């Protein structure tokens, strides 16, 4: 096994681990914001580590550049959408806690919808 292959194996494994961790967090964490936190780990670290791991395998220069561009796009998109979702969850929670009518079953906030699995 060459050095490049060992590098790939280590980083791809780490990335896969973070995807697994993100899944566990998404399924097991108690409320929306912590789940989002877990998701962001998978989004940024998981994909980032997989991309780093694949860099030695990619064809220079375009394959490599494309991978890096992909990671940049993913970080940008993942970060912005996490921000969007967090804002929505937060606003919803604020609305329900200040006596706004709880949105029945449609809202992002945990517990706001009185739903089956919601815990807050």
């Amino acid at each position: 096994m060459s050095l490049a292959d060992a590098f790939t194996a280590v980083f791809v494994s780490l990335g896969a681990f973070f995807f697994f961790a993100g899944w566990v967090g998404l399924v097991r964490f108690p409320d929306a914001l912590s789940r989002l936190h877990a998701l962001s780990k998978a989004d940024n670290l998981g994909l980032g580590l997989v991309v780093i791991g694949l860099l030695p395998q990619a064809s220079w220069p375009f394959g490599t550049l494309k991978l890096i561009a992909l990671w940049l796009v993913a970080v940008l998109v993942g970060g912005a959408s996490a921000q969007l979702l967090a804002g929505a969850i937060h606003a919803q929670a604020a609305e329900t806690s200040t006596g706004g009518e709880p949105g029945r079953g449609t809202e992002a906030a945990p517990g706001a919808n009185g739903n089956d699995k919601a815990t807050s």
Partner: protein
Amino acid sequence: MPDVSLPDPHWADLPLGFALLVLALWLTWTQRDRAAVIGFTGYGLLVAIAWVRLGSMDVALTEAALGGGLMGLLLLTAAARLGEETDQPAPGLPARLSIALLCLGVTLVLAAVVLGLPSPAPNLVAPVASHQAVTELGNPVAAVLIAFRAVDTMLESVVLALAVIVLWSFGADRAWGARPRALHLGPPSPALVFLGRLLPPAGLIVGVHLFWTGADHPGGPFQGGAVLAAMAALLWLARLGEPPRVSDGLTRLGIVVGPLLFLLIGLAGAVIADAFLDYPEALTKPLILLIEAAKTLSVAVALALLVAGPPELPGPMPPRQSGRAAKGVTP
């Protein structure tokens, strides 16, 4: 893509197919529209991966761009605007049961047909490959789309243009000439504006890349155009731009330039070459590129306008905004 079979493990297919069916069942039976629409965007992603497994990268790209991006945008904004609809009255159990049995029967017949397909499978791989050199295209799907089945493709771009016209005609009479407003959904949050500033340049590059690479690799006008349309929709959603007025001449030109050029070159082919939509031998590649470029533009404009909806007058938009909805969220 010369190698015959993908050497990857097959046990990813079974979970994927299973997930597709579970998701489809869930979004048919779940209670709320918006949840179902969110599930549907996930479904689109899965279908794109399924197409990769079926060896059709061209279709996978189209499905990802349409099903994953634009379709989610279209349906989620519609769900936001329509609100949750009351359940429609369902017929009695016997009727539902018989309909379910009927659908099951359709499934069983189709499955039997799929499993009983003749072997070896009839195919057009060899004819396409043997004639592909004439088009100077490396991508057989592009060759089929633009040369061998060119009538289909031309009619399809005409259909897109017609769809925009029909969509516009759904607007109220007095709103004619106004801008489409389906993507006017309240003040955009800062994160959305940020994304709207940074993502479209990247999307522009990806869209043009998909169009350009489509000659020799998977990709093409539809895929590239869909990405460009998604970027335009993002700009409109982030309020960094406005959809054009429906009376705008340049927009109208953009919609029809693809089919029109296709038709004109096709007619010219009837005179210069041998038949309608036949290309003169020496000019085949440049003509194809010209048509594809115009088609990318037209597809992009038409798809973006389809997401943007019919023209509407400014002001609150029924049925969406009620009085109490005005107390806003400030994300």
